[in-house]
């Protein structure tokens, strides 16, 4: 029972990160039908920038904010330089472009920050709090709170602001959105910026718990994508649900079955989802017109 509580805490923590990454995937996919395989690199760049700015002497909050801003710039550049020029490309082509972008960003990170691993100091100290026989670090709470805040902010943005609704319109029908005067290109750009911000936030939240290096983005990105599929690619809330669920499944699986195969669990789950119900938990089934 107490083991279960510990699993719950770890699972929700890592699940929150997956949720943020998945949400980022979902936003870009909804706006532009592109699966951004470089999403994980946003997480890495956010964390690594913040780490090095902190080392350089900036106060923690400012370093974090700048880390996020740098990542947002990278996201905007990705849209402008790689996605926009290839707007009529096939699905395979765009997949490979974003994979290329992810490799490129990793290569740049390798040049700038080398191969070593780094961490951020915890936000408010590292004294574990005990709940029953389970322990929870203050940072775990920060991760969950931070994720909840980000998710609520995004939900408010899409439901209640004009800009958010404009982006939603683009996801339903780009031509129609364009015809009613929405600057589609700008909306796509904002989506990328938003996704980058979410990814960077995830990186900064998790860096005090897991160490980061130039290659940390890959697995996070892939698993975030798994979470998005699990929850249903078209649905933002689905992405969040998928992320939390995936985190829990992975942690419990690693605990009961084997920790070596932990990464395999996420992909195994996703293949099951793809075989049985590709639209995911909250997604809608697709159909073609002949």
């Amino acid at each position, binding site marked *: 029972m107490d083991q279960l509580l510990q699993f719950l805490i770890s699972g929700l923590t890592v699940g929150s990160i997956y949720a943020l990454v998945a949400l980022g995937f979902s936003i870009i996919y909804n706006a532009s039908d592109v*699966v951004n395989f470089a999403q994980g690199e946003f997480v890495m760049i956010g964390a690594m920038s913040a780490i090095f700015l902190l080392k350089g002497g900036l106060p923690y909050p400012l370093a974090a904010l700048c880390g996020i801003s740098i990542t947002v710039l990278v996201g905007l550049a990705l849209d402008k330089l*790689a996605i926009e*020029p*290839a707007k009529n*490309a*096939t*699905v*395979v*082509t765009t*997949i*490979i*472009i974003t*994979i*290329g*972008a*992810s*490799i*490129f*960003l*990793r*290569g*740049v990170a*390798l*040049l700038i920050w080398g191969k070593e691993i780094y961490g951020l100091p915890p936000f408010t100290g590292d004294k574990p709090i005990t709940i029953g026989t389970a322990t929870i670090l203050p940072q775990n709470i920060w991760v969950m709170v931070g994720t909840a805040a980000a998710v609520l902010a995004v939900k408010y943005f899409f439901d209640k602001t004009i800009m958010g609704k404009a982006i939603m319109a683009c996801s339903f029908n780009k031509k129609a959105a364009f015809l009613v005067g929405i600057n589609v290109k700008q909306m796509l750009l904002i989506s990328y910026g938003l996704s980058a911000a979410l990814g960077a936030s995830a990186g900064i939240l998790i860096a005090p718990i897991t160490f980061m290096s130039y290659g940390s983005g*890959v697995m996070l990105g*892939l698993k975030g*994508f*798994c979470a998005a*599929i699990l929850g249903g*690619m078209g649905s933002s809330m689905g992405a969040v649900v998928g992320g939390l669920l995936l985190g829990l499944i992975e942690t419990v699986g690693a605990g009961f079955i*084997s920790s*070596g*195969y932990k*990464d*395999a669990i996420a*992909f*195994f789950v*996703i*293949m099951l989802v*793809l*075989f049985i119900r*590709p639209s995911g938990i909250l997604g809608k089934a697709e159909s073609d017109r*002949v």
Partner: protein
Amino acid sequence: MKRLAGYYCFAIATLMLPLLFPDSYYVTVVGVTVCTNIVLAVSLNLLMGYAGQISLGHAAFFGLGAYSSAVLTIKYGMNPWLAMTAGVIAVTVLSYVLSRPILRLKGHYLAMATLGLGIIVHIFFVQADQFTGGPDGISGLPVLSILGYPIDSDLKWYWTFAIFMLASVLFSLNIAHSRSGRALAAVHGSEIAAQMLGVDTARVKSYVFVFSAVLACITGSLFAHQQDFVSPESFSFFFSIELVTMVVLGGLGSTFGAVIGAILLSLLPEVLLVFEDFEVMIFGAILMVIMIFLPQGLFVAMEQTFFRLLRRKNQRAADVTS
């Protein structure tokens, strides 16, 4: 025979290489790597280029071939050819069973499913260390002999791989200009129209998936014997991406595109040796630039330019004579 003119030139060049440059490390050792990559790229091209599917997990079948040869010969003392056959049978069954549910998917979902397959297999190689030797790998494969002649020198390995590669390329070219090749391309062009003409699209996709997997598997077995060492590193998700890069770099749907893509990408690390730290970044940049500006691939772009120039020359000649 005119159809295969390009192929014959390529075959002659490949076979002449060690004769023109005897005792060259580059030809024999790098040549083997290039041949390996060519077969893998050509096999992936059948699936991605002709049939229009995506696979981000092709390295898995390459690895399964390598590990079955390594494990069965080292740990169970099996005859190398028997081990290779066992690997082929296992991969045939596995790829066939997986092909049906996987190939029902399209686009990103298909990409993800094949990615998942590749990653799960790779993790298995790393984790099942009683069999696979874990992250450190295993070595000590017995010598491979063909009809009693042992392949025990770099040069002999070059001939083996070169012949295997040339056969694979020929098979791929033959398939392209056949009923099967057209069925594959039809599936790519319009699955529904293909079905309406009697093409069992699910079966066609399955068969090409299995065929390309088996080709990769055999390559893996040869690779294991030649390297005398297998470790999970060679069969990671990154290598699957490299293979996809080779196929699209040259040009999806073109056998020779895949060949050129494989050659270029195999030689790239040698060229980039000077810029070792920049290698990852440059690789990513190349991928992006080619896909944005030349999505049809280098080889197809070259072909198109060539024909455009030819047409312009003929046009000018016609103008002069009229």
